[in-house]
């Protein structure tokens, strides 16, 4: 044993963003973790300050466990990794023989390194199209619209270029809290150099605080706002006439569609003043290049999503901002990394055992095997291998996943493997998810994670995952297939206890279930294979001072081969959507609960509720067990206007019941004068690790998880089957007997 401290580069273990850290270790145990000052992607958020606590937290899962009592009873038996894998593989094989490979559902969420990519690869080789990962309920709707309209998506994490970008509109996004500090700092740096920052959000978010113009709209009305802006831009002739003439199809139809969306009518729908609508429309159209961001907020509006995400695409297109630096540069294809080849999507499309499409293809075909095939066809000339994040074209709706388990509709799903997802908390209608996860129809549920989440409590097997300090890492976005950039970091510590990296679960199940020969022995060896086109081994790249490669993509790539659509043009009437049976140029539609669509319900539940904004302290449903973060953000907050609160007898810091027709949960009142008095924002994704984990408590989910009182019915979802989480109705009143 030596007492010497050694310093290594590594990856922050606390969330899935994979930021880089410098780890000081003594006797192989990390003793100090700081940002890697030499990295382009340093860990600089409050979560990273809890990295040490996360790595060796007493709540971490350290051994494989098998359920010993009823599901959720909290009784477990410690078993070996090999026994667990043998039993799981045996059950999966039986289920495949009896019900087909599609009877296996995979749930992912916030990645632990290779988890999503390794899972997709396994599913494609196995023959199930039923995987729901990062992206579903996380902005997928926006990407599908972009692919439908112009065949490419904006490069994820695009920030304004200081001195070049004229206007940056952050729409449905709070980059300050959701993205890394480094990216947010780019917005501030650009603003310093004259970029006008506009934020479209019902909340005065941290980003909106810094904006030149904050557009406060009624939650859910983004589509009407986009159409109103299009109306102004077209009526006033402010669009890019050359680009429209040369590259757009369907401009006349678009003109006709948005004609009735006059600023006056749009003010009525959105509660945004006419003058502001005119300002933002004119500002965006007359300043080039300009950025109009991707946004999660406008992708979670249920029926109102469709016009919102299409409207944003139309705005970028007719103003001539597509694939230009400082505007809306397209995502580059993975070329330095053999990502598409290694995923084996082609194998899934023609899998000999696969007889059926995913469980929601009949309802939302834009995300299905059929949809993926059609996208591939439309893109064939420009992207012969398809796009990197093709999984986004495939994810079924969670609504249908539970129907498949509970009712065998459209066919039975019998097994689920959850990796890095807390589905019970993350999707709408937690009660129904609970039913599905405890149903006898579900013959097998495996959860691999870092902590015993409420979802893991309901599993049959729980497997302990290594964190990012304990394993090799490639930049997460590269492992979702985004972009052509990657970075490699070595493991900074040996795995503690019996934790294993996620890759090993898929490798071991694959090797036992007919995929032998496909899985290199270690994650690092698989990374070597992914990196083959770059002619560098993982180890060599990770040991370089500059351990990343970021080639600059070219611009206006459409000038060479056209756009990756059926027509080769920007389709303002997207033919792909038409072929799948969607109205290709829809009207704005209200969310299924709103003062306009359900005025009677709004009498009883008068507050418009949006939920789930990010904070820097927590990544999605994670980190609630970390003491330092909890001290700064101890409980879920309901943001409410002081006058509304006063009328309801609610004071700052009170526990408040938030109620919908589905029930009620408790949050703490946070009075904010900037919110519309008719609107509230409820924190989402909360559970309390310190409360009993076994049923019925399940870490307090029924008392505190907003998704427990949000419906997931099929007819409320958006065009990709995503839930409506951000435009709802509720009422609020004080908790009389707060315990």
């Amino acid at each position: 044993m030596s007492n010497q401290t050694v310093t290594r580069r590594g990856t922050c273990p606390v969330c899935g963003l994979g930021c880089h850290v410098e780890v000081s270790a003594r006797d192989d145990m990390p003793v100090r973790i700081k940002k890697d000052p030499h990295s382009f992607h340093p860990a600089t958020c409050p979560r990273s300050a809890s990295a040490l606590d996360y790595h060796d937290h007493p709540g971490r899962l350290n051994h494989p466990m098998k359920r010993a009592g009823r599901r959720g009873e909290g009784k477990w038996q410690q078993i070996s990794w090999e026994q667990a894998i043998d039993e799981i593989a045996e059950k999966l094989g039986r289920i495949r023989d009896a019900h087909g490979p599609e009877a296996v559902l995979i749930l992912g969420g916030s990645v632990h390194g290779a988890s999503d990519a390794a899972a997709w690869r396994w599913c494609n080789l196995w023959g199930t199209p039923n995987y729901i990962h990062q992206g579903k309920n996380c902005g997928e709707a926006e990407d599908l619209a972009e692919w439908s309209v112009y065949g490419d998506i904006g490069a994820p994490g695009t920030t304004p270029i200081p001195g070049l970008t004229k206007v940056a509109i952050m729409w449905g996004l709070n980059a300050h809290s959701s993205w890394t500090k480094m990216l947010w700092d780019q917005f501030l740096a650009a603003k310093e150099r004259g970029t006008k920052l506009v934020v479209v959000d019902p909340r005065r978010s941290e980003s909106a605080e810094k904006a030149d113009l904050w557009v406060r709209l009624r939650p859910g009305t983004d589509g009407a706002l986009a159409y109103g802006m299009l109306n102004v831009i077209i009526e006033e002739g402010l669009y890019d006439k050359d680009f429209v003439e040369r590259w757009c199809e369907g401009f006349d139809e678009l003109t006709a569609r948005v004609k009735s969306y006059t600023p006056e009518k749009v003010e009525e729908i959105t509660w945004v003043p006419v003058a502001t609508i005119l300002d933002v429309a004119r500002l965006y159209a007359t300043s080039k290049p300009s950025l109009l961001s991707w946004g999660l907020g406008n992708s979670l509006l249920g029926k109102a999503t469709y016009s919102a995400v299409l409207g944003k695409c139309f705005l970028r297109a007719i103003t001539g901002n597509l694939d230009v630096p400082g505007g809306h540069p397209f995502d580059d294809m993975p070329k330095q990394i053999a990502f598409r080849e290694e995923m084996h999507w082609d194998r899934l499309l023609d899998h000999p055992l696969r007889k059926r499409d995913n469980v929601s293809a009949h309802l939302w075909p834009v995300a299905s095997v059929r949809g993926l095939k059609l996208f591939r066809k439309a893109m064939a000339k420009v992207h012969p291998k398809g796009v990197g994040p093709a999984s986004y074209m495939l994810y079924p709706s969670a609504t249908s996943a539970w129907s498949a388990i509970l009712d065998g509709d459209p066919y039975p799903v019998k097994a689920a493997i959850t990796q890095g997802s807390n589905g019970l908390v993350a999707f709408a209608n937690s009660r129904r998810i609970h039913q599905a996860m405890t149903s006898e129809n579900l013959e097998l549920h495996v959860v691999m994670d870092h902590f015993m989440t409420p979802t893991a409590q309901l599993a049959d097997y729980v497997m302990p995952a290594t964190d990012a300090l304990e394993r090799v890492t490639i930049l997460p976005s590269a492992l979702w297939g985004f972009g052509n950039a990657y970075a490699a970091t070595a493991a900074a510590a040996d795995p503690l206890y019996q934790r294993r990296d996620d890759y090993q679960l898929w490798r071991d199940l694959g090797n036992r279930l007919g995929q032998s020969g496909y899985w290199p022995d270690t994650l690092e060896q698989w990374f070597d294979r992914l990196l083959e086109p770059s002619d560098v081994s993982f180890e060599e790249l990770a040991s370089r001072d500059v351990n990343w490669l970021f080639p600059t993509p070219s611009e206006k790539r459409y000038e060479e081969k056209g756009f990756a659509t059926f027509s080769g043009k920007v389709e303002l009437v997207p033919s792909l959507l038409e072929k799948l049976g969607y109205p290709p140029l829809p009207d704005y539609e209200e969310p299924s609960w709103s003062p306009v669509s359900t005025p009677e319900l709004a009498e009883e539940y008068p507050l418009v509720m949006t939920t789930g904004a990010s904070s820097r302290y927590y990544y999605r449903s994670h980190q609630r067990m970390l003491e330092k973060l909890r001290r700064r953000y101890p409980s879920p907050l309901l943001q409410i206007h002081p006058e509304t609160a006063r009328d309801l007898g609610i004071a700052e810091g009170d526990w408040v019941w938030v109620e919908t027709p589905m029930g009620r949960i408790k949050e703490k009142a946070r009075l904010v004068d900037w919110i519309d008095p008719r609107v509230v924002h409820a924190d989402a994704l909360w559970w309390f690790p310190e409360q009993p984990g076994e049923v019925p408590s399940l870490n307090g989910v029924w008392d505190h998880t907003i998704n427990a009182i949000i419906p997931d019915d099929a007819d409320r979802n958006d065009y990709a089957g995503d839930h409506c989480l951000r435009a709802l109705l509720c009422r609020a009143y004080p908790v009389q007997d707060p315990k």
Partner: protein
Amino acid sequence: MATMITDDCISCGACEDECPNDAIRLGDDIFVIDPERCSECVGLHATQKCAEACPVECCVPDPERRETEEVLLERAQRIHAGRGLTLEVNE
């Protein structure tokens, strides 16, 4: 000189927990050190606790406030009256 927190602060609060003088508070967006309570840990610790805890190295000497060890010690003695602090620190 007293210590200050730069714009690189990520509002994690690690420094606030460590400060022996209770000199650090969350400001508008980032944490702020009250220079009237900062003794740079003189008299209390051999190293400066906030700088040591900060994961992004944004607790740095304030060039506008250069102070001698004696001044800093006197401040620490005032804050921790009765503890008999000296420049010799035994940790």
